């Protein structure tokens, strides 16, 4: 009996598709993301990401607040790395106001953003480890992240929502004790990245789980408008810090890290390697920190920019974060729009999840490193 005949002889197995809600309360959706999964066995047939559980209407709120007040709102987009959020709004508003930050403020902005990138990537490394099932790297990553948060607390008083970068400069200057602490941290941190590599990145089980999983080709990444490590993991060399330098990034020597095939491991390893690059940048900033004031003169208490538009974008920890501000000459923006990288990175999931296994869904979802505060805004 041929195999075909054998199959024909068996009455068709009655199989059913299951609908599984992955989230909004699920250990590995990194916030309140809900993915409606239709599964057959363990294979995904259809995936519908459902967002909006954390919508706070920041863009609308900005229309009723002054420019100084809006900086506070920006802290809440990407709460894991809010320095770049502050920065991008301030850059856009400064364009509107025609103000230029002082050199020392620029250097401090770069330093804080890079430190925050390290903190954010550390969080990613830890939580991605948990997604894949290794609990211990999470605590190790948090141990180091805690030191960065301590540094932020020393300089601006907050550990998560900094409100540090202001229109025309930064809130306060750093102290020599802080710089000493930062140097201590950098010396401590550099060997720790190698440890993450040994413990997690080059762990054979971790590599088996993530290499070759969730492949996103360069063309797909570009056409879905991915940015940040998700784009670079696919091998596209694009980094706003190099492509469109701001705050004097052109003065610092660093490499744009790209992956090879666009697998989950590539995206993960991009971030790990970016931490090394960020350490390099911070060291360079520390070496040539210019003297001077940290706040530019001429920023009014209640700024009223001339009517017009401005767009600024920075390379935030999760990708290309942009802010489009429209002013009608009033005390608050007429319109603010945020190009949130997490939101755009999330969009590719609905196509990429189909055909994967449930374990791979977690691997891909984790590797895009979304923050729902930024997705829903």
């Amino acid at each position, binding site marked *: 009996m041929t195999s075909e005949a054998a199959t024909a002889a068996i009455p068709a197995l009655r199989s059913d598709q299951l609908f599984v809600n992955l989230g909004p309360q699920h250990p590995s959706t990194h916030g309140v993301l809900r993915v409606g999964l239709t599964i057959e066995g363990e294979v995904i047939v259809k995936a519908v990401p459902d967002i909006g559980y954390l919508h706070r209407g920041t863009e609308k709120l900005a229309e009723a*607040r*002054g420019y*100084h*007040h*809006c900086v*506070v*709102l920006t*802290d809440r987009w990407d709460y894991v790395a809010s320095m770049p959020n502050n920065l991008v709004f301030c850059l856009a508003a400064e364009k509107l106001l025609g103000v230029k930050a002082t050199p020392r403020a620029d250097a401090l902005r770069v330093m804080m953003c890079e430190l925050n990138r390290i903190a954010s990537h550390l969080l990613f490394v830890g939580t991605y480890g948990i997604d894949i099932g290794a609990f*211990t790297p999470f605590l*190790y990553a948090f*141990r180091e992240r805690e030191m960065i948060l*301590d540094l932020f*607390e*020393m*300089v*601006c*008083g*907050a550990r998560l*929502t900094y*409100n540090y970068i202001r229109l025309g400069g930064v*809130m*306060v200057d750093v102290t020599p004790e802080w710089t000493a602490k930062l140097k201590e941290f950098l010396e401590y941190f550099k060997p720790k990245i190698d*440890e993450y590599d*040994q*413990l*997690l990145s*080059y*762990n*054979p*089980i971790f590599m088996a789980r993530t290499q070759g999983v969730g492949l996103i080709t360069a063309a797909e990444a570009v056409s879905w408008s991915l940015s940040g490590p998700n784009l670079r993991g696919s091998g596209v060399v694009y980094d706003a810090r190099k492509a469109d330098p701001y705050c004097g990034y052109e003065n610092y020597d660093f490499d744009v890290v790209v992956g090879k095939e666009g697998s989950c491991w590539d995206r993960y390893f991009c971030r790990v390697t970016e931490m090394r690059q960020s350490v390099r940048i911070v060291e360079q900033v520390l070496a040539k920190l210019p003297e001077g004031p940290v706040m530019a003169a001429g920023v009014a*208490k*209640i700024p009223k920019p001339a009517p017009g538009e401005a767009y600024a974008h920075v390379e935030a920890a999760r990708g290309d974060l942009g802010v489009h501000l429209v002013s009608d000459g009033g005390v608050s923006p007429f319109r603010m729009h945020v190009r949130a990288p997490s939101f755009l990175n999330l969009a590719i999931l609905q196509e990429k999840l189909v055909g994967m296994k449930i374990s791979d869904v977690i691997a891909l979802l984790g590797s895009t490193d979304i923050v729902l505060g930024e997705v829903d805004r």
Partner: protein
Amino acid sequence: MIGYFSKVYKVAAALVTGHLITLKYMLKPSITIHYPTEKLTPYERFRGALTFDAATCISCSMCVKACPSNCIALENAVSEAGKKVAKVAWYSIDFGKCNFCRLCEESCPTKPKSVWHSLDYEVVFASRDEMVRCWKKDFPFIGKYFDRRTQDFKDPEGQVCIHEVPPRRS
């Protein structure tokens, strides 16, 4: 065949390296602190719960304007002659709305600051009423809250330990 065995060896070696790292940290002292019995002192610039000092306040409303979330409210005191004086009649902060952004403190023109972030990070509230702290003439240092059920001002209990941390005020 050699390739297969070398791969097996490499995988095993990588796994063993990971185990050695975890063993290394197991033998090192742990880095956590025991929170309720050991408390961290925040750094000097820490932005904790807002505190208000009615004695120095000149009732200029700068903090009210600076606040991005409208959590501060105050009313000018009125002299017996019916004229406004540079004192507050009452001052309230809604911690339910507070962003801990330091804008009010920066805008305060008095020296020392009349409204400032203390180092208190243990701000816990049992009810929504407790979140709105009120300062009047004889109200204590950490303010009182207005209980809507009993319709009177009460001392917040059990959650503010501002006394335990040195205040930062400049």
